[in-house]
């Protein structure tokens, strides 16, 4: 994962680029990620800060009960009110961000650790290796992740660990397929041939060159997968299969059907909105990172196209 660290800024950050006037960093950010991407990023950053600094930010102990405050509405004591047993909803949301983010983070990390090497292997060697890996991916891809997770929970009992393990397996093809396709494109580039002729080994070429060049695609897809995993884990927690009840977790909080039946919607709506916003932001940001920008045909990119191409839509320098 360390090689990926430099990537998100890569498309924009070219301080040494000659002939390009230095623009305000904000404008450059906007050019790369767009307004929606920046908003998504800011939101996710805020959630991350919430999770990391939860003990500092939460106004109260998330597990402190006070039956007097049962279903209390928003007030200065409880900004978002309290749940059925009088726990502060805002504090539970703040602490809940920890478990809600930890699960998907684990799922994506494990999937990447397993998927990237497999994908690079398949792309580099092609032929039988590629075919075998592709078949295995197809097989796993055919199984819905949630079903796999339910199966794991049935075997090992409810809890975050079996759910995360099962989802990690299920998410490998989702990530690895994209990585393989992107790596394959690089693999067939003459620059990879040139490196091979220079005597560089497979590992060095794939990790130092190919992986570095496809990092935006990997990161983008990882962000999207993170959103899906968050949703899946929230669903499992909602069903009582992943995170267990006393721990604060957004999925668990949404499952508070008791509150709904009594007509108190805030304890359920607040975590629900957070889940939706997180997934949405991750998807938007993921697409932006991997370079899916609304394409403008008007944009001129100097030297971006080969001289031999004549597609009428190319944004080639200037004629010729």
């Amino acid at each position, binding site marked *: 994962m360390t090689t990926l660290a430099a990537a998100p800024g890569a498309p924009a950050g070219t301080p040494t680029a000659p002939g390009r006037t230095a623009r305000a960093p904000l404008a450059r950010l906007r050019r790369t990620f767009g307004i929606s991407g920046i908003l998504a990023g800011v939101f996710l950053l805020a959630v991350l800060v919430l999770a990391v600094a939860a003990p500092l930010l939460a106004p109260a102990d998330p597990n402190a009960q006070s039956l007097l405050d049962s279903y209390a509405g928003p007030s200065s004591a409880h900004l978002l009110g309290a749940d059925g047993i009088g726990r502060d909803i805002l504090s539970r949301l703040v602490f809940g961000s920890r478990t809600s983010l930890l699960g998907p983070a684990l799922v994506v990390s494990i999937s990447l650790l397993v998927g990237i090497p497999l994908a690079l292997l398949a792309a580099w060697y092609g032929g039988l290796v590629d075919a075998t890996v592709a078949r295995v991916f197809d097989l796993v891809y055919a199984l819905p992740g949630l079903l796999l997770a339910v199966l794991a929970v049935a075997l090992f009992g409810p809890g975050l660990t079996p759910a995360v393990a099962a989802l990690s397996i299920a998410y490998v093809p989702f990530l690895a397929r994209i990585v393989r396709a992107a790596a394959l494109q690089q693999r067939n580039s003459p620059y990879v041939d040139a490196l091979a002729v220079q005597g560089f080994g497979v590992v060095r070429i794939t990790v130092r060159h190919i992986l570095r060049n496809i990092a935006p695609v990997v990161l983008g897809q990882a962000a999207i997968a993170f959103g899906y995993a968050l949703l899946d884990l929230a669903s499992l927690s909602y069903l009582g299969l992943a995170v267990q009840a006393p721990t604060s977790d957004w999925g668990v909080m949404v499952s508070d059907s008791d509150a709904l039946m009594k007509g108190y919607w805030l304890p359920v709506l607040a975590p629900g909105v957070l889940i939706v916003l997180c997934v949405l932001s991750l998807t938007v940001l993921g697409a932006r990172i991997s370079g899916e920008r609304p394409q*403008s*045909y008007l*944009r001129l990119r100097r030297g971006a196209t080969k001289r*031999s191409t*004549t597609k009428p839509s190319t944004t080639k*320098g*200037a*004629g*010729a």
Partner: protein
Amino acid sequence: MTSSSPGGSDPLRATPDGTAAATAHPATAAPLLELSGLTVRLAVEDGSRAVLDGIDLSLAPGEALGLVGESGSGKSMTVRAVTRLLPGGAEVDGTVRFEGQDVNAMSGPELRAYRDRGVGMIFQDPRAHINPTRRIGAFLTEALIRNRGTGRREAEARAAAVLAEVGIDSPERRLRQYPHELSGGMLQRVMIASVLLAEPRLILADEPTTALDVTIQAEVVGILDRLRRERGMGMVFITHDLDLALAVCRRVAVMYAGRIVEVREAEELHRRAAHPYTLGLLGSRPSIDERADRLDAIPGRPVSAFESGPGCAFADRCAHVQPVCREERPELEPFQGGLVRCHRVAEIHSRQDQEASA
């Protein structure tokens, strides 16, 4: 049908005040295509960039004109402007007149008719411009059937006849084939056939043979040239290969950084090129007949119109550069029977003549 191209021998017709024009061709017909002061700016992220800067050109009916330049010279942009196929957001100044009609003022139906019967385009990569999922026959007859109301059977007969004319054997069988079954050279002939079927008055050929092998290039160029002459069609032939342009065209315009820097009769250009850039191009090309000790390479790289300063765009690469070249923009002016855009052309050549005679 061997009527040699009428007019066409007069490079000065491009200028409104061309004095030699009157003497050389007193009864010149109205030009088929006339560009005057054509300037194109393309929209980019932060504003717009000039790609063409005041192009003046005219083409007589039946004339073949070569448009030669390196990357960024704007030669492809010129034909795109002629067909009104510029990218969105492009700002166009100056006029493009086809048979006297302003192309940029054409209405929708007029434009369609102009693109259908007025001009035909041949591209560098025919594979990218022919729908791979449809048979050659469908590609060739579509325009006839849809736009002209020709019957299917007649359209196919005509398509087969034209395929035979461009040197494709068993044309009936080819009509039933798909593009991937044909080689690049064959496909380029199909592209030429499709243009011929529409019988346009003007052919715009954009690097039509660059992707082909030399032996195929010779055949394709030969076919194009013969049919063009037989049918009296005008042609703008775009290429980076000066020698090829000289062989195919009567008159050649050399472009640099979105401007025309020299226009001259093909035969003259190769003997008496005047602009330092044209001379540089001729000197850059290695000869097949002998090995040069060193090629007379032009330093630097070709620039686009938007990269050039207020003066002569070639100034930074020119051996004869003077302060005036960087400050003042030279105009396209008559010189030794052609047109040259250079402040110092007379000076340079008189000095060389002196050296030669000394």
